[in-house]
C-alpha cells in the first residue's frame, strides 16, 4: 500500500458518522483511485497500529478504537472530567423537544393551567413543568377561577432573555409562521390571483384592454 493512504484512512475514520469498517475504507479508496490500487484489510490494520503509535508518541488526547467491527476516534479517559463538565453545561442550555413544546404552549396561551396544557400535549407534563420552573423559564402567575382552582403558568423575563426577545408581543405570531410555512400550492394560487390583477392593470395602462385575453388564467 502506498503511504499516501495513511492520511486518507485517517480522514475517512475522522469524518465517518459511525465506526467505519476496514472494508468501507478500501471501497472508498478503490472507488476513487481505481480497483487496481493495492490495499487490503491487513494494510488497514497496520495503519490502525501506526496511527495509534503516532498519537501515543506525540501526546495526542485521542486515539483510534475498534468498535462494533469498525474503527472510530475517541478521546482518552484522562480528559473525561473536562469533557463531562462541558457536556453537562451544554445540556443545561439545550432545551429538549418536550420542554420546548411545553414552553411554546405556555408562551402562546399564557396564563395556562396544567390541565389545559396536558389536554393540548396529550401527555402528563409534571416533570417538564418542574424542569422549566427550575430553569426559571416559567413561573406560577396565579390561579384559575375554574373548579379546583388550578395554578396558572406564565413565562418569565428569563424566558424572554433566553430567546432574545424584548417583550412577549415580539413572539412570532402563529399566523406569521403559517405564512412562511405554507406550501407551494397555496403560493401558486396566490400568484395566479395576483397575475390576474396585475394583467388588468397593465392592459389598462397600455390601452390594449380590448385585445386582452385571459386565456392563460383559468
Amino acid at each position, binding site marked *: 500500500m502506498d503511504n499516501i493512504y495513511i492520511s486518507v484512512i485517517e480522514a475517512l475514520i475522522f469524518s465517518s458518522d459511525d465506526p467505519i469498517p476496514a472494508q468501507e475504507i478500501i471501497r472508498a479508496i478503490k472507488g476513487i483511485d481505481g480497483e487496481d490500487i493495492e490495499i487490503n484489510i491487513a494494510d488497514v490494520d497496520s495503519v490502525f497500529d501506526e496511527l495509534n503509535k503516532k498519537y501515543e508518541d506525540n501526546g495526542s488526547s485521542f486515539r483510534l*478504537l475498534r468498535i462494533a467491527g469498525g474503527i472510530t476516534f475517541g478521546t482518552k479517559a484522562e480528559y473525561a472530567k473536562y469533557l*463531562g463538565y462541558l457536556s453537562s453545561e451544554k445540556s443545561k442550555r439545550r432545551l429538549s423537544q418536550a420542554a420546548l413544546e411545553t414552553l411554546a404552549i405556555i408562551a402562546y396561551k399564557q396564563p395556562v393551567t396544567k390541565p389545559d396544557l396536558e389536554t393540548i400535549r396529550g401527555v402528563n407534563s409534571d416533570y417538564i413543568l418542574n424542569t422549566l*420552573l427550575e430553569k426559571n423559564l416559567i413561573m406560577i402567575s396565579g390561579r384559575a377561577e375554574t373548579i379546583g382552582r388550578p395554578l396558572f403558568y406564565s413565562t418569565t423575563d428569563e424566558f424572554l432573555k433566553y430567546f432574545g426577545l424584548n417583550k412577549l408581543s415580539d413572539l412570532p405570531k402563529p399566523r406569521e409562521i403559517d405564512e412562511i410555512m405554507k406550501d407551494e400550492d397555496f403560493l401558486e394560487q396566490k*400568484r395566479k390571483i395576483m397575475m390576474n390583477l396585475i394583467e388588468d392593470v*397593465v392592459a389598462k395602462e397600455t390601452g390594449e384592454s380590448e385585445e386582452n385575453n385571459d386565456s392563460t388564467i383559468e
Partner: protein
Amino acid sequence: MYTIKLDQFEGPLDLLLFFIKRDELNIYDIPISKITKEFLEYVEYIKMLDLEVAGDFILMASTLMHIKVRMLLPKEVDEKGEEIDPRAELIQALLEYKKYKEVSEELTFFESNQRKVSFRGNYDHDEKISPPEYDILLKNVTLFDLAKAFRNAIEGVKPVPVHEIQKINITIDEQIEFIMSKVNEFKEIHFLSLVHGMQEKIRIVITFIALLELAKAAMIGIKVSEDFNDFVLYKLENNG
C-alpha cells in the same frame, strides 16, 4: 427573440440586468420603450410556461409601463426644481440588486471551499464524566422553592384512615407564636424539622401560612437549605 433559459433568472431585476448587459445599454439612460417591449414578450412566454414567478415579472411589467407613461408626460420636478427622471427608482433598484447578486457569486466560492472540509463524524466514544453537582445553580429562594418544600412536607405525612370528623383547634396566631418561639430558641430552624411530628395536614398548612405572614412582616428570614426540598427559617437580628 434570443433563446434564453428563463430559469436562469432569479427575477425581473435579473432579467433586466441581462438585457442591459447583452445590449450594452447605459444603465443611467435605459431606453424604456425598447426594454418594456422586450420584457413584455418574455412575460407572455413566462405566462405560457405558467412559471411560479410570473406574478413578480408581471409586477415589473406594470412598473415599466408606469415609467413609460411618465416619460411621455411633461417632466416632474422635485423641491429643488430639478427634473425627476421617472427611471431613477428603477436604476437604484437594479444597482442595489446587482450589488447583492455579485456578493452571492462570491459566496459560491466560500461554499465550494467549505464543501471540501469534513468535520468529525462520530462522538459516541469520547470518555466523559458528568459531575452531578454542577447541575445545581439555584441561588435564591423563590416561591417555587417554597412551594416545593411545602409539598414535600405534605407528602411526608402518612395518610391515616379517618372515620370520624375531628375538629382540630388550631389558628394562624397560635402557629405564629409557635414559630417565633422556635426561631428565638434556635436562631435557625429547618422547615421540615419545624413541622416534624405534626400529624394533620391542616396543621402543616396553617404553620406554613403563619410563616409566610411572618416573612411578609419581616419578623423572620427565609433562606435556601443545602437540601433543595427544604428551607431554613432564621431569626432577624433587629427583631431580637
